[in-house]
């Protein structure tokens, strides 16, 4: 009988869900264009408006690319999930999943993979566009690429977990974007994505330092800007270890909140 055979593992189903989520995402043309191409459009606008050089070999575009990749982590993970999950909840697709033997962790793994893959595509497009049109330089130091890799992986994971956690906040699928988007935009301004962080008022810097985007942005600057630029950071260094610890803390908090608050249906 059926119950004697064992169920597929949570991880295997998570990977299967990831594949399904990615396929679904790729078929939604509007969201593909918006998520993947929007950062390049922003880079084009800012790169054309601000032609200043911030330091020796640091164009505004170079500074801005670091910020765009970091905010890509927040957009593709946190923002995207906190908007789409309430819709899935409203449509009843989550309730249907709840009725199957699938473990909730498989659903979370699927979302993480979706975020990681769309992040990877976005980064490739952004860096390629930046190099070709705006003279963005890639780091040559392998250590910087290592930092880059863990920032993307850890950042995506934390952003995913926080997005799932925040998905319980909007009361309806339709209203979700109005609740989530302002949070993200304010965070981007405060965290030095659009402006040089140290030019922001002190209180803004202090508020931003609580949230992960500031640390993601600073981490990405450590990858894309010369080490000499670290002197112009708030602490005078890149604070790489601290960035790692703070993102880890957000990841753990995000997972905890996601598990505690996740709802399969609206009532």
């Amino acid at each position, binding site marked *: 009988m059926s*119950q*004697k055979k064992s169920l597929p593992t949570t991880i295997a189903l998570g990977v*299967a869900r990831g594949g399904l989520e990615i396929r*679904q995402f790729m078929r939604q043309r509007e969201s593909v264009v918006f998520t993947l191409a929007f950062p390049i459009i922003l880079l084009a606008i800012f790169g054309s408006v601000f032609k200043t050089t911030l330091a020796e070999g640091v164009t505004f575009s170079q500074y801005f690319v670091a910020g765009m990749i970091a905010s890509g982590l927040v957009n593709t993970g946190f923002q995207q999930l906190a908007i789409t999950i309430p819709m899935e909840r409203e449509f*009843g697709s989550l309730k249907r999943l709840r*009725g*199957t*033997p699938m473990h909730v962790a498989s659903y979370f793994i699927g979302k993480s993979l979706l975020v990681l893959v769309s992040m990877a595509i976005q980064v490739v497009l952004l860096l390629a566009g930046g190099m070709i049109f705006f003279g963005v330089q890639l780091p040559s130091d392998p250590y910087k690429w290592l930092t880059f890799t863990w920032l993307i992986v850890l950042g995506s994971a934390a952003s995913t977990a926080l997005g799932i956690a925040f998905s319980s906040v909007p009361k309806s699928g339709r209203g979700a974007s109005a609740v989530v988007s302002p949070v993200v935009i304010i965070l981007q301004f405060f965290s030095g994505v659009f402006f040089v962080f140290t030019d922001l008022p002190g209180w803004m810097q202090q508020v931003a330092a609580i949230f992960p985007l500031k640390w993601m942005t600073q981490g990405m600057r450590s990858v894309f800007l010369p080490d000499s630029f670290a002197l112009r950071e708030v602490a005078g260094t890149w604070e790489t270890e601290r960035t790692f610890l703070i993102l880890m803390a957000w990841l753990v908090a995000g997972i905890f909140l996601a598990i505690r608050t996740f709802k399969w*249906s609206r009532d």
Partner: protein
Amino acid sequence: MNVIEVQGLHKTYADTKAVDGIDLTIAQGEIFALLGPNGAGKTTTVEILEGFRKADSGSISVLGFDPSQRGAQSRMWRNRIGIVLQSTADAGDLSVEETISHFAKYYSAPRDVDEVINSVGLDEKRGALIRTLSGGQRRRLDVALGIIGSPELLFLDEPTTGFDPEARRAFWSLIESLRKGGTTILLTTHYLDEAEALADRVAVITRGKILEVSTPTQLGGRATAKARVQWKSDGVMQEEFTDNPTDVVKRLSAQFPGEVPELQVLRPSLEDIYLSMIGEKR
């Protein structure tokens, strides 16, 4: 063996008693229909049995398991049941075949994907994206997802709402084939003809209580109710209620020279019985 056993089920929302002391026993292989007006407590009862809601009190056993429990045990339990919810509207960017074969992965012993697609009559739509399906086709996909795990127990919540008559007949024969395979089915429906065609037993619920559990032919004393004989005489419709309609027809055929004008012998339909039952209690 009983697949579902419920005793003294209660559930209150704020100050509304949604379920007010329900007892229910459903045997293996049975098709059982829950009938009742909107807000009678049907969906709440079913959702408690499906493990979506927690009862305030009462003892519940579904396939020998308490649905409110969580954990690995609960997933093994879900592996043995299938649920077709009232309505699910996915974003619809996957095809019928992709969706069904994905859901097949959730279960330890899924049915064959092609066979399931065929049995719900979606062969021609297997490659179509869900968002291009009609309402009835979507509903058939819902049913396909409910049965893909080869469930021992299937919950069907108003499965044919929005079907045209032809699709409803096709759906009924699908249910018949599941019955032959030994699947136990708990069905809620608004359509009395559906309950009559499919169910071994029906229960009528109003205001959170079960009024009666019976076979569709015997519900509300239907089997023993008087028959109504109708005919036309001198241009006026006549009718007579009788326990012996054959005698009345004999008498009429003697009375009229040829055909008795517009002769009809009517037994109360399940719908007549049902409406009078819930009418009394409103």
